[in-house]
């Protein structure tokens, strides 16, 4: 009854209306951002309409452009430029880019047998990713023009037929295979990496948020009680200190999980919205690269991922959850100790720093590189941070590297036991009231010592 009473109180303190509104708002914001950014990226990738200014009236150019339009089902949108002031012209026509085929283009290639210029004008709107995407997709169109142009030259200048041109154009048939940990699948590595990148970003992000939220919550809960002296009132009541400690930890875990769930859903939608267009683009490109006869071996990305062992089994999920739980428990135990040292709000902020650093280092390292590829010294330093093992757990479980997983788990269990022992020691002794960390005080002391030394 008393534990339930304490837990209810802790949850009421942590899950206020404002906290829940903030969680929902963040999730909705991420979903909306994903849609907005995804829409902008899809627009950037859009190759269905090419804005073209054709200043050449030769038959060669006309035939070539017809084939360009037919080759990809692309609609050519013709515009007329009134001057060479491209900035003003793009603004006037309200277009992002334009391909200009100058007068004499056909004549130069067919009659003079000389390469001719094609101009491509693109407007950079800002430094954002979507802005450069329209340039990338337009470049794709230019390479199509180049390809069709080559066909026309071969056809008209050298009298080759369509079959000859096709053979020259596609002298090989690319069938892509990807291997991973001894397993092979007939799937494009680029298509695969786009999907795994999305997965590998969501999990660490959720771990990151979960850890920071839980740690900050418990630290604030303990320090606020200590500063407001409600802790003294609470601990002089007939209730076990371990019950108080347990209620705080359980409430922090529940709140953090709720936070992580909202953020995780929001972030997943954000990534899906943002990456969806990119994945579709890469997947469709990969499919096009695989000839029909080879397509028999490839059905889908998900099948390829299963073949390569890149999907998690229910047991793997349980193992990952176990390590996630241990990570949060370690974070909470450390935060309990640090929170008990707080004397005011300023010291709480300072005491949060060690946890933040320990959470951020493995987060950024594992996001951008493989820990195992680091030098031995750095590898051990990074692995000494207990949170690292949870960041790498998913990869280890996917890759079937169970030895590394179990070593990480055992290390975390030992680390948790030590931290919990210290936390209980702090909470059940005078240290809870006598331990303090005051940056101003220690700075003053140092200052005095320095002044005394100099006298």
């Amino acid at each position, binding site marked *: 009854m008393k534990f339930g009473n304490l837990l209810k109180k802790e949850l009421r303190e942590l899950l206020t209306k404002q906290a829940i509104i903030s969680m929902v708002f963040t999730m909705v914001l991420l979903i909306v951002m994903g849609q907005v950014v995804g829409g902008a990226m899809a627009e950037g990738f859009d190759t269905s309409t090419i804005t073209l200014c054709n200043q050449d009236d030769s038959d060669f150019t006309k035939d070539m452009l017809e084939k360009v339009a037919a080759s990809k089902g692309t609609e050519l949108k013709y515009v007329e430029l009134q001057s060479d002031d491209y900035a003003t012209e793009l603004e006037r026509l309200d277009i992002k880019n334009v391909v200009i085929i100058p007068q004499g283009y056909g004549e130069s290639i067919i009659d003079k047998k000389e390469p001719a210029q094609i101009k491509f004008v693109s407007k950079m709107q800002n430094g954002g990713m979507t802005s450069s995407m329209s340039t990338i997709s337009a470049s794709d169109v230019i390479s199509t023009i180049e390809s069709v142009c080559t066909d026309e030259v071969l056809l008209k200048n050298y009298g080759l037929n369509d079959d000859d041109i096709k053979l020259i154009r596609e002298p090989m048939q690319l069938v892509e295979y990807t291997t991973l940990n001894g397993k092979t699948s007939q799937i494009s590595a680029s298509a695969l990496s786009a999907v795994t990148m999305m997965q590998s970003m969501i999990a660490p992000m959720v771990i990151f948020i979960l850890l920071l939220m839980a740690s900050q919550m418990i630290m604030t809960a303990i320090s606020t009680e200590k500063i407001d002296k*409600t802790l003294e009132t609470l601990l002089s009541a007939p209730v076990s200190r371990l019950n108080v400690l347990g209620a705080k930890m359980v409430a922090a875990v529940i709140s953090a999980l709720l936070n992580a769930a909202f953020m995780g859903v929001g972030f997943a939608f954000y990534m899906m919205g943002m990456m969806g267009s990119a994945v579709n683009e890469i997947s469709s490109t990969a499919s096009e690269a695989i000839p029909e006869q080879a397509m028999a071996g490839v059905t889908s990305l998900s099948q390829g991922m299963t073949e390569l062992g890149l999907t998690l089994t229910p047991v793997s999920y349980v193992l990952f959850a176990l390590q996630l739980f241990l990570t949060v428990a370690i974070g909470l135990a450390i935060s309990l100790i640090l929170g008990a040292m707080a004397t005011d709000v300023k010291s709480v902020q300072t005491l949060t720093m060690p946890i933040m650093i320990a959470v951020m280092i493995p987060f950024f390292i594992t996001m951008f590189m493989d820990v195992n590829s680091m030098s031995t010294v750095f590898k051990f330093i990074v692995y000494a941070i207990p949170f690292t093992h949870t960041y790498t757990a998913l990869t280890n479980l996917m890759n079937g590297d169970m030895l590394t997983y179990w070593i990480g788990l055992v290390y975390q269990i030992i680390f948790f036991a030590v931290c919990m022992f210290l936390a209980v020691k702090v909470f059940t002794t005078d240290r809870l009231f006598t331990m303090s960390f005051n940056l101003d005080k220690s700075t003053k002391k140092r200052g005095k010592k320095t002044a005394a030394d100099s006298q």
Partner: protein
Amino acid sequence: MAAVLEVQGLSKKYPKKENFAVDDVSFSVNEGEIFALIGPNGAGKTTTIRMISTLIQATSGDALVAGHSIIKEPDKVRESITYLPDEAGAYKTMTGINYLNFMAGLFAKDKETLDKYVERGKAICGLGDRLEEKIGGYSRGMIRKLLLARAVMTEPKLAIMDEATSGLDVINALEIRKMIKALAKEQNMAFLLSSHNMLEIEYVSDRVGIITGGKLMVVGKIDELKERYEAANLEEVFERVVKNHEVR
């Protein structure tokens, strides 16, 4: 009258400190008695109170609360006491009534007792409909009244209060003093108070103990002490004991 609190040679030495914060302190508080522990800042009042409240451990000595040792039976001691720290706050996100319910829940063994405690708390604090509001919006006086109600609603054998009226205006402070006197007289509740306000102590206490440098110098009824030190008031007694270290 039976002693509710018997402090026997209680001492406390903090690690890395040369001197004892509390040095061999002994006194007792009887049923229905209001005992005040007074002394200058850093004298050892709060440390003594914290040891009796089982918040920190004594280096040596013991104290019996309703016959239970603070060293051997801290759980039993906590069932018999309530503690109101100096400048204590309450949970700002809770309403007053939720706070009383929460605290009563830590003492009550069944629903009937819990309801009885809460009803008592509501009557003592006198906050009426304001109890339905969040504590975050309470004035200092309202919070102190709520905390005092919390401290006495469970009918503890010993209520320990550190600076019970600090920071309160005259009217609120007077109300709280009257409340303490009434509870001691009518409910036979024992109080261990700590305060810097000598007028308050003179008004409310039956006996006082003057502590300085961790040592309890003198204990006695206020009138007896005034007579013993030939002093006009408690302040003069305090000055002679603390400043001149006179022990009579």
